[in-house]
């Protein structure tokens, strides 16, 4: 009977990344800043206070080439964003949803929008280093998941990758129970101090080359649970992280995007991602 059920309802599986999927493109989980707002000094007051996690920063001009105007700047650290939408509701002229589930980055710094100029070079270096490392991996890769202080929803989204809609086996991605067989360590949670030692042991138990993904805003920065005596404020201080994925929790597509980014398997030029061009534009500006 179950065998029969398995064949019903046609094909539910996404074809992403080979084909676009609207659930990927329409996703919005973190905030971004609209095109370089150069605000009059008075207008910047109170913007940072809009955000419950301190993801919004305001600062005097950064001194860069695009800063001739005597304005002040405002930015969003997506690595701290929990997607509450408050900033967008209060100031739709300045903030918008970042479009699409592809929100992962190869450097913590690259989650800050608008991008700072140096990030480009760093990213190129990181990409090259990662490419050298993952070259040794075969077509099938094994992922070890580890919870280091999540709220429990992140595990649901990671587990969703195995359901027939995402079915990551089709991409040669498998989850493994033993660190010794793992190529990728997928870490969720805010970096609870009680998990620091088990995390280190798991990381050390993995063979080289290995890749670490911090999955979710909690894993990136601690999210809303930071600061706390009981967490490290993300996992970056506990193990070396290669890929950073915001989202509270990150959507299954965001996690999948991060895995493929790590493997250099996203379509297009290797490792290409939004937010790398010099202007700091995302390439996919959210629709107003």
């Amino acid at each position, binding site marked *: 009977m179950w065998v029969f059920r*398995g064949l019903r309802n046609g094909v539910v599986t996404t074809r992403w990344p080979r084909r676009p999927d609207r659930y990927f493109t329409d996703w919005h989980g973190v905030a971004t800043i609209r095109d370089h707002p150069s605000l009059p000094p008075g207008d910047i007051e109170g913007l940072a206070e809009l955000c419950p996690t301190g993801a919004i920063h305001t600062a005097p001009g950064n001194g860069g080439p695009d800063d001739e105007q005597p304005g002040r700047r405002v930015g969003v650290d997506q690595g701290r964003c929990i*997607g509450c939408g408050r900033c967008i509701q209060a100031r739709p002229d300045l903030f918008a949803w970042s479009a699409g589930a592809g929100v992962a980055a190869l450097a913590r710094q690259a989650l800050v929008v608008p991008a700072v100029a140096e990030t480009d070079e760093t990213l190129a270096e990181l990409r090259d280093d990662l490419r050298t490392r993952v070259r040794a991996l075969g077509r099938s890769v094994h992922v070890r*998941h580890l*919870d280091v*202080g999540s709220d429990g929803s992140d595990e649901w989204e990671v587990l969703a990758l195995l359901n027939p809609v995402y079915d990551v086996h089709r991409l040669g991605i498998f989850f493994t129970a033993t660190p010794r067989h793992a190529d990728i360590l997928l870490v969720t949670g805010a970096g609870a101090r009680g998990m620091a030692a088990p995390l280190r042991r798991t990381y050390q138990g993995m063979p080289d080359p290995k890749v670490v993904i911090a999955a979710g805003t909690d894993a990136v920065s601690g999210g*809303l*649970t930071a600061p706390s005596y009981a967490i490290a404020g993300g996992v970056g201080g506990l193990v070396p992280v290669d890929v950073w994925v915001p989202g509270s929790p990150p959507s299954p597509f965001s996690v999948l995007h991060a895995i493929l980014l790590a493997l250099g398997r996203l379509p297009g030029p290797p490792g290409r991602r939004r937010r790398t061009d010099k202007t700091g534009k995302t390439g996919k500006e959210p629709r107003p």
Partner: protein
Amino acid sequence: MTEIVGLGEVASLRDELARRLAGGQRFAGLYGADHDGGVRLTALVAADGDVAELDADLPADAAAYPALTPSVPAAFWYEREIHDLFGVAPDGHPRLDPLVLPLLQADPVRPRPGAEKNPQRLDPDEHALPRHVMGPGVFTIPHGPVRSGVFESVEYLVETPGEDIPHLNIRVFYKHRGIEKRFEHMAPADGVLLAERVEGIASVAHALAYCHALERLAGCVPPWPAQLVRVLYAELERIANHLDAALKLADAAGLAVAVARFGWHKERVLRLVGRLAGNRFGRGVVVPGGVSRLPALGPAAALAELNGLQRNIDVDAALLMGTSSFLDRLRTTGPLPADRARAHGALGPVGKASGHACDARDDRPYDAYPTLGAAPRRRYDDGDALARLRVRWDEVRESFHLLRQVVDQLDDIHDPTVRAPVEVAGGRAVGWAEAPQGEVLYAVQVTDGRVARCKPRSASFHNLVLFHEVFVGDILTDFPFSEASFGLSIAGVAL
């Protein structure tokens, strides 16, 4: 208003507790709050219509107090938690091992929720944990904290002392996040965002319980459309959670196709929530005083999606409940006797499967529930994993029934106001909601317009301790079934 009874000494608290429990009220929790350097102990007692707070005070220099666990066994974990967080020892407690934060007894720095100060950093100290039992014929099988699969981190130590019944030791401290201290000093309106992240798979229920506490303090009644929208998301959350439990049970039994089917249905529920709310877990919707917005999907479209979902789930659930090899695996597995469920006040599906049917939606109805028609519930008292799954399917059916009514009524809304103002200067109140795991309580104290103390009491915390008791047969092979049938979240336990 929440009934708050100051009783002075712990002995008086113990007597008052005994009196109320004998009168049919239910012990629902125990927590501490720093009080001028001393500790205020507060017992939560549920009766029809309200949850009362019974207070006792320990002076600032008290290092110990007479334990309540000997007279109220359900306080077993609560007193261990209080010991971890405040450093005061319950004298006469049967097994005072660390639970949420292992620190050496001598360590003076504790989180002390309710205190103005907040420690910079506290590392769990493994030396504070008891040594594993060793000896001839005695061994300990560790299970975790790093699990074999995509699970939350928790350690189950199975101690098999020779011929005796194996003992299970549950260690939840690994993912303690210090949530209670994090609530403190927050603006009440921000606290709801944190409540959504206490036990993320029950975000809506936690947000509701938190907001209900604030609304009681403010004397605020959310507008009618908001009450309906709250039920909408709470019931979708229930369906998703019960599908998750079914999926994990099927996985334990190796039914790959069933896992795929329920995984697909669960994904569809989360996507529906996402389309309605803009977030797959319904986050950002519930706010103090109502909801932030109406669903983004029209009633007709929502109804069509719900009907399709229910048809598919019904067929697959019927098929699962007709797979005899599967039922055999669940029958008599992880049994919780009815008298234990009642004595402990077991919550949610775990309690209901053992004849202890308490449900905050019935006992202390909130939001739109009182006006919605619910079919009478079936009673179960087998107390095994199978009964727990049957309860879940009944609840799924009931959720769809409620959802259809909600969507119907939302169609008739003319006044789009979804939020009433909530101004809270100060006070204490308890709020509640029925999560998929069972009753969630929030004991909230506001001082000078800020959260001064917030104690979330999840059903997961209250129920997980019962896990000690449900292994009568082969502990190792029954384990995945028992765990999945409880359907709890460790995030809601270790906070």
